[in-house]
């Protein structure tokens, strides 16, 4: 059936948990693109038939016309599916810049298509240049803070990090009191957790 493959591509996105990204399915994507080309070829050959019979393109409503309409509609449908696939993934990729930061972990990086990597890089650069213009880090304090300092526990060895004007050694399982804005990015990357009690 026409358009079946394209909708299978989209079902893949809806099946995984919201906000998660699936590996870019380049095989199916290619196949749908090829399907589009096939529809286009069929469409052209049907139109040619109408022209060969010297009929008026605009008013003719014969079998060829309806065949061409069906191919045209299938082409548009496939296009819509492909666009939606890219668009919905791009939304997630954008949100990753805000949640994880400018560097993506390897397991997510592997799931992206080449053009998506470029998109992420360019989006990231755009945000960074805007933030440096404002001289303000927009990605911190996404949740309104109650206190400028928080207690954190380090989950993985991070090593020596320059925070503010002095360097702190962030060893696994050590507990620190850090400025919230400094800790926030480590927490969202899963390297620290907020330490309560």
């Amino acid at each position: 059936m026409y358009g079946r493959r394209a909708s299978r591509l989209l079902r893949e996105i809806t099946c995984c948990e919201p906000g998660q990204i699936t590996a870019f399915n380049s095989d199916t994507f290619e196949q749908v693109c090829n399907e589009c080309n096939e529809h286009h070829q069929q469409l052209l050959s049907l139109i040619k038939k109408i022209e060969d019979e010297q009929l008026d393109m605009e008013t003719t409503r014969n079998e060829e016309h309806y065949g061409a309409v069906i191919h045209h509609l299938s082409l548009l449908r496939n296009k819509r599916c492909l666009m939606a696939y890219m668009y919905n993934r791009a939304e997630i990729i954008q949100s990753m810049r805000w949640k994880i930061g400018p560097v993506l972990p390897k397991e997510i990086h592997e799931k992206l298509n080449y053009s998506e990597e470029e998109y992420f890089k360019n989006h990231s650069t755009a945000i960074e240049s805007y933030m440096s213009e404002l001289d303000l880090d927009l990605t911190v304090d996404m949740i309104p803070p109650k206190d400028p300092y928080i207690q954190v526990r380090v989950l993985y060895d991070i090593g020596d990090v320059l925070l503010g004007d002095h360097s702190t050694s962030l060893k696994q399982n050590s507990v620190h009191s850090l400025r919230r804005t400094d800790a926030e990015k480590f927490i969202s990357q899963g390297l620290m957790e907020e330490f309560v009690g």
Partner: protein
Amino acid sequence: MARYYDLDDIITEDEGTSVIFQVGANGVGLLDPSSENNNVEKGSKVDLPFWLAHELYLRKAVTINFPACFNQKIRKEIQADAACVDLKIQCPYFYEFGCKIIPLTGDKTLGSFLQYAFTSRYKEALSKSHGAGTSPKFLNRLTIEETHLFEAARCSMINLKKWRLGGCRLEKAAILGRKRKSV
């Protein structure tokens, strides 16, 4: 075209609809498995996805048969005990698809039937979403639209509890996955 990129909307339109061709169409034999040449004959009965059936209907190329998921049998089941009917197996996007099909069938009763089905099932879904455990059997009966509502209710309940108790407010980004890797 407001929902051009909407995944749910696209998948809803994938729902099969049985139609009868009022015209012939050449070069599209794939649509009709019984066709011997590459054409669909006038008068043949074919299952088309809704997106195609709808457009062809607007061009007066096909007539649409009333979809089986809204037949009298289902209506009677809904009237008997709405909450117990497995609507997902009938059609995963029962309400959305219903709304899309109304203008094409001219059935005046379908709209009020959908509303009746939704309101009588909504109460049950809402009270269950706030309760502790829900059987997967119940969740499987919900349509996709109902599942979205169910999840929204459950999520807001969890957030409310979290807000009341206090505790961690900063969390690891959800996209990185919940599992903590062993070191």
